[in-house]
């Protein structure tokens, strides 16, 4: 047994367990949660890049061309690939959590979760299609 227990009669010493700083490695759900929260970092990075893009645009065609060249370098391609995966994870987990917060009742019955999730995906696809159409047409 370890060192002298601090027990006074009728005053038992409760044992409080410390929460380890690696608590989130204990189970896959927790790890997934922490990754989900980390996606906010990559969303912030995307936003920063976007602001940089705007600044380059304002500065003129040379600055903009410079910006585009920078983006094509390997480190930035890697950053964007990783960031894209994280943002995808962010969007998917968020869609699946949406029905928890949004409770819609139609004629007294609760709209099932898959409808809410499905509507989110549908809206996402539509908007993406619209954006793709605008960007890719000649």
């Amino acid at each position, binding site marked *: 047994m370890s060192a002298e227990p601090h027990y006074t*009669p*009728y*005053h*038992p010493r409760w044992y409080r367990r410390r929460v380890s700083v690696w608590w989130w490695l204990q189970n896959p759900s927790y790890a997934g949660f922490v990754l989900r929260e980390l996606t906010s970092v990559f969303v912030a990075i995307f936003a920063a890049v976007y602001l940089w893009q705007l600044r380059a645009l304002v500065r003129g065609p040379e600055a903009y061309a410079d910006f585009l060249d920078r983006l094509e370098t390997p480190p930035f391609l890697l950053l964007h690939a990783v960031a894209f995966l994280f943002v995808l994870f962010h969007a998917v987990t968020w869609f699946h959590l949406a029905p928890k917060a949004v409770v819609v009742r139609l004629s007294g019955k609760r709209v099932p979760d898959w409808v809410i999730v499905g509507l989110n995906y549908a809206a996402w696809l539509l908007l993406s299609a619209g954006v793709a159409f605008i960007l890719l047409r000649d």
Partner: protein
Amino acid sequence: MDLFACDVLVVGGGGAGLRAAIAVAETHPRLRVAVISKVYPMRSHTVSAEGGAAAVIKAGDSLDEHAYDTISGADWLCDQDAVEAFVREAPEEMLRLEHWGCPWNREPDGHIAVRPFGGMKVERTWFAADKTGFHMLHSLFQTTLKYDVIQRFDEYFVTTLLVDEGRCQGVVAIELGTGKIQAITAKAVILCTGGCGKVFPFTTNASIKNGDGMALAYRAGTPVKDMEFVQYHPTGLPFTGILITEAARSEGGWLLNKDGYRYLQDYDLGKPEPKPVFRSMELGPRDRLSQAFVKEQEKDRTLVGPYGHYVHLDVRHLGERVIDKKIPFVRELCLKYVGIDPVKEMIPVRPVVHYMMGGIHTDIHGATPLPGLYAAGEAACVSINGANRLGSNSLTEILVFGARAGKAAAAFAAEQREASSSILDQAQDEQRRLEDTLLHRTGGKERIATLRAEMHQVMEESAGIYRAEAALKKAAEKLQELQERARDVALEDHSYTFNTELTAALELSYMLDVAQMIVQSALERTESRGSHQRTDHPQRDDERFLKHSLAYRAEDGSPRIEYLPVTITRWPPGQRVYGR
């Protein structure tokens, strides 16, 4: 020793106890009221009640009908003045609980819905899905949080009542978390400690139902009434004994023997109809249904499984929608504990001990003959349940008599002086007793589990659904032997902190006292009535036995039985007729 003083002390934090505490807080807000319980209140066994609570509310119903159903269901052994008060106050108490937030099931127009129940002529059982007790207990508990004046002692184990100058003046209890022994004085004590199902091996009851209050009252010298009347619920799961609510039958379930035959029709319970018929077949009273099972078993028409004999409860014809709406918890329990889906398969069931009609003798205000001591709920016997309780009457009983006992105890306490000074000496004696005989005990050769198992065996064999003199006499001797052996119990746990072996030993001693009361009362009642069936005296004998049996504690600790006539008002004893 720590001494805490209050005005009204409620022992037991279940439905009756919490209702009593609220009654005190509302009628006498200046009194100090405390609730002491060996578990947190939301763990009290009220929580597992499923079916419903009866009160007259529908147009085609009347108080007299409810009273007659209750009285005939009790085989005329209940006190009719108490039943009249009960049925009269029931609707108001139930409405009050609705106002306190209980989520009763509703009709489409928003009014309270009722369902039919065993032994009742008209639908009058209010229900909250099939978890009525759970919702009632949580509604009551959450309502008590509103009253700052109600102080709670959670996880304190009461070991004795303090009686001095001819009145009950408090309790001694062990604070489980620290092991500290505390004296709590009160001007009135209300025992709401529930029943004693764990005296039997096969029961729907939780581990905490050890008849604590009944033994405490018995040891304090006040009588315990009608202990021979033990209710067997006809449909419990084999092995675990988990309750399958009567609602499964009131919604239309059928009881089938091994040939798929609705065997209840052979036992003067009516003709089988496709839909449930009031007071007929599966909606008959619980004692008759359990007795029918035993008879079927004797004829070899029951099924045999790894855990003994059983029959089938068939609810498949109700359909999935009705099952999920009206009895979803039944489906959950069957899937989990038996691995079958009642929508597609039949549920194996057998009678299990469920309720104790007997209990601490009280009058219609919840007062025992000992001044300052009150009782309510399953721990008490007023008596409204007589020789057999109808399903859904006890959840209403805890409200009606919990309130009555609370009001009566508060009125009594308001007139009393503080506790006498010699109470502290008594409390210190109790502390010494606990320390010497249990806590500091070394040696001993009896294991608690062994003694408990032997008690279970003798109770199952001799005090079951059918009883006979020889078996009961042997049981009385065996229990006396177990009482002596229990003095030499060996404890492995000498800790002060949350010592559940100590509480198990104390609970065993309570259960042995209760078991002796049951056996002695059963031995001396030489007739058959309701749930007490003697194979050697198969007839009901109103001439000699239209009386309650009162068990008093004799000098040597064994029970001495006396009799008290039943109060008859408007319903002279008649025949119990079901199915016709």
